[in-house]
C-alpha cells in the first residue's frame, strides 16, 4: 500500500507498465520458444542481438535531456553519418586510427554546437533548426565520401565491438555509465532541475536567473558529441564507414524516449523510462526479426506501442486530476 502510494506519487507507473510489458514479452517468447528448440531468451542470443542496440541507446540519453528541456534534436542520425564519414576519410588519408577518432569526436561536437548556436542565438525552433541541419549534415557527408565505403580498419580499433564486461561491449558499458550520469544530473543536480524548469516554462526559468542559453548550448553540443561516439562505435562494429550510417536512427531514438514516458512538450520525463523504452523497443524488434524476419511488422508494432503508451498516459493522468 505504502509502496503503491509512493509509486503513484512519483509517477512511476509508466516505468512499471513498461517493465511489465518487457517481462511479458520475454516470458511469452520463452514459453513459445521452449516448444521449438531455438532459444530467443538466452544469454547468447540476447548478447548477440544487443550489439545492434547500443548506438540507438546512446543517442537516446542526450535526446531525453533535450526533450525534457522542451527541445528536440532530429539531426543525431545525420551527425552520426557525418562523423562516420570523417572517421573513414581521416583513416583513408593515412591518419592514425586514434587521432582519427579524436577528429571524428571533434566533428560531432562541432555539429552539435552549431545546432545549439542556431537554437540559442537565432531563436529558431529546434525542430526547424535540426530538421535543416539533419539534411545539411547528411548532404555534406554524402558529398565528402562518394559511393565507396571505407573499411579495413585495424584490428585494435575493431576490437571495440567485442564484449568486455558481463557480455557488454564498450558501447553497452558506456550506455550504462551515460544513463546513470544523466539520471544523477536530472535528479540530483541544479543543472538537471533547471533544464526541467526550462522545459516546463522557459520564461519563468529566464526570469529566475537560470542560464537558459548556456544550458541549451551544452545540451545540443553534448548530443552532437554522443552522436559522434555512436558513429565511431558503429564503424568499429561493422568495419565500414559510409554516409548512410545512422540513417533513420533519430526517429527510433525519439520513439524510445517518448515510449519511456518523456513528454514531447518538455518538462516531464526520466532516464529510467528511456532505458526501459530502449530495451522494449529493442526486444520487440529483435523478436520479430528472430521469429518472422519481417521488418515491416516491427514498424507496425512499435507504432502501435507508441500511440498506446501516450494514450494510456493521458487517460491515467486525467483520472488523477
Amino acid at each position: 500500500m505504502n509502496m503503491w502510494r509512493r509509486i503513484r506519487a512519483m509517477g512511476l507507473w509508466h516505468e512499471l507498465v513498461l517493465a511489465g510489458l518487457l517481462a511479458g514479452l520475454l516470458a511469452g517468447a520463452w514459453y513459445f520458444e521452449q516448444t521449438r528448440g531455438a532459444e530467443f531468451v538466452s544469454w547468447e542470443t540476447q548478447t548477440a542481438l544487443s550489439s545492434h542496440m547500443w548506438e540507438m541507446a546512446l543517442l537516446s540519453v542526450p535526446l531525453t535531456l533535450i526533450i525534457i528541456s522542451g527541445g528536440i534534436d532530429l539531426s543525431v542520425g545525420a551527425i552520426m553519418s557525418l562523423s562516420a564519414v570523417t572517421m573513414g576519410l581521416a583513416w583513408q588519408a593515412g591518419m592514425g586510427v586514434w587521432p582519427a577518432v579524436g577528429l571524428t569526436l571533434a566533428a560531432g561536437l562541432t555539429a552539435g554546437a552549431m545546432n545549439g548556436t542556431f537554437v540559442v542565438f537565432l531563436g529558431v525552433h529546434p525542430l526547424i533548426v535540426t530538421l535543416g541541419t539533419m539534411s545539411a549534415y547528411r548532404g555534406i557527408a554524402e558529398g565528402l565520401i562518394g559511393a565507396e565505403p571505407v573499411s579495413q580498419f585495424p584490428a585494435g580499433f575493431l576490437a571495440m565491438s567485442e564484449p568486455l564486461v558481463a557480455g557488454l561491449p564498450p558501447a553497452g558499458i558506456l550506455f550504462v555509465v551515460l544513463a546513470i550520469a544523466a539520471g544523477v544530473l536530472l535528479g540530483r543536480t541544479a543543472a538537471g532541475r533547471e533544464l526541467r524548469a526550462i522545459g516546463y516554462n522557459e520564461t519563468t526559468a529566464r526570469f529566475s536567473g537560470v542560464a537558459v542559453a548556456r544550458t541549451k548550448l551544452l545540451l545540443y553540443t553534448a548530443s552532437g558529441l554522443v552522436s559522434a561516439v555512436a558513429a565511431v562505435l558503429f564503424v568499429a562494429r561493422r568495419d565500414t564507414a559510409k554516409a548512410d550510417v545512422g540513417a533513420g536512427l533519430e526517429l527510433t531514438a525519439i520513439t524510445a524516449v517518448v515510449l519511456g514516458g518523456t513528454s514531447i512538450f518538455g518538462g516531464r520525463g526520466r532516464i529510467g523510462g528511456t532505458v526501459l523504452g530502449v530495451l522494449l523497443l529493442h526486444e520487440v524488434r529483435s523478436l520479430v526479426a528472430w521469429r518472422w524476419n519481417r521488418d515491416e511488422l516491427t514498424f507496425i508494432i512499435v507504432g502501435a506501442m507508441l500511440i498506446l503508451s501516450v494514450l494510456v498516459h493521458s487517460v491515467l493522468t486525467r483520472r488523477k486530476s
Partner: protein
Amino acid sequence: MSDVLVDIQRVSKHFGGVRALREVSLAIAPGEVHALCGENGAGKSTLIEILSGSCRPNAGQVLLAGRRLGLGNVGACEQAGVAVIHQEPVAFGHLSAVDNIFVGRELTLAGGLLLNRRAMRRGASELLADLGGGVDLACPVRCLPPAQRQRVAMARAILRDAKLLILDEPTASLSERETAVLFALIRRLRNQGVSVLYVSHRLEEVFALADRVSVLRDGRLVGTRLAGELDRATLIAMMVGPEASESSRLGGDGPAPGKAGEALLEVSGLTRRGAFEDITFTVRAGEVVGLAGLVGAGRSDVARALGGVDEPDGGLVKLAGEILPGGSVRRAIAGGLVLVPEDRHRQGLVLPMSVGANLTLSVLRRLTRMGLTRPARERRMAGRIMGELDIRAESDRAAVSTLSGGNQQKVVLGKALAAKPKVLVLDEPTRGVDVAAKAQLHRTIRLLADRGMATLLISSDLPELLSASDRVVVMRAGRITGELTRDEATQERVLHLALPPDRANTEGGAS
C-alpha cells in the same frame, strides 16, 4: 413563478479543496438588470462559467424559464438563451464581425451549399447599426477597438435571441462616452424583456443600472437587495465582510525619521528605446516607493530592466552604491535585486513543479554541495519560507498548480526572498489575489521594509499603491512626470500626473 426567468438553485462548485461556490441560490426576473458584486475570488467568475455552460457545478441546478439548463454544456446553454459577453469579447479573432455574428447560424444559398454573404452582411450591419453602429465589418475582429468588439458580441447574442445576457466587467476598457452608449443599450434590452446579469467592480455603475444587487463573498451569497435600498457603504460592507475591513488600512508609516537608510537602489537616466526614457529615482533602505501610471506607461518595462530581464539602452543602476550591469537576471539576483514579475503563471512560476522546487529555483546553485542538490536543506529552506509567508499547501512537494491564486503569489514572493535581496521590485504583487491573501501580502511588504528592504512597488490598484507606499513616482508614456510624498499623494494628484494632460478632466478611474 412567471416573475422568475433564471432560477439558480443551491449551486456548489469546488476545485480540488477550494470551494468556489457554496449553495448559492439566486433568482433573476425577466427584464431585470441584476448586478453581481463581490471581491476577486468571491465566486463571480465561477457562477458566470456555470451559467455559460463552460463549467459544471458539483451540486445544484439552474432553471431557465422553468426548464433545467444543460449545465456543463456550452452549446445547450447558448441554445437555451444564455449569452456571456466577456471582458475581452472575441470568439474568433481572425474572422470578421459578420462571420463572428453568424458563426453557426450562417445564412445560405443553393440549399445550404453556399454562404449567402450578402444577406449576412446586411443582417450584421443592421444589427450593429441598432447597437450604435460604427463597426468595420471587413476587419478581423481582433483588430477592432474593445467597444466595437463588444458590440459584435452583443449582436451575436441578439441574433441568438438571448434571454439572459451576462456582462462581465463590460466597461473595463470603454471610454465614458462608450459607457453611456452601452448603458442606454442595456436599458433598451431590459425594456424588451431581456434579463441582464451585470458584473462590475465599479459600484457607481451598479447603482446607475441595476434593479437588484446580489453580493457574493467567499463563494456564498451574502444577500440580494433592491438597488434603491442600498447605499455605497452598505454594499462595500457586504462585499468585504465584517472581519476584513480592518486590514484594508495599512502600516505605511514609512521609515522612522532619521532612520531613512542608505540609498540601496539608485536609478539615473535609465532608458530603453520604445519603452521608457530617462528614468531617475532612488529607493532607500526601509522605504516602499510606489511606481504609478496607467497601463502601458512603461512601469513593467522599467521593472523588467531593473530585474535584468531586458537590457537597457542607456542610464545607470546602482545597487547599494555599486554599479549593476544590465541585462542579466543572475547578476541582478547576485547583486541583491530581485524582480517579482507581473504574470505569475507565465513569468513567476513553474506550475507543474513542486512548491519547494519553485521556492529554491533562483538560488538552487547556492544550495548544492559538490554539484549535487541537497534535498534536506532545500526542504528546510522551503519550509521556513512557507511558514514565514503562511503559504498554504499540502506540503512543499505539492505542485504549485494545485495552490490557490493567493498562495501561488506568495510562492513567487517567497522565491524572491529566498535570494535574500536588498531591493525588491514587485510588479502587481496582488493582482487576482483574494482579500485575505492581499492583506497578508501588504503586511509582508511593510514588514520587509521595516527590516531594511528597499521596495519598488507597482500596482494598478491605486488605493492599494497609495496606502502601501511611502513615496509615489508617477510615469506617463515612458517618462517620469512627478514624484509625490506620502502627504501629497492623493488619487486625484496621481491621476493628474498619470493621465495625458488634455484628458485629465474628462476621464476618470485609472485602476
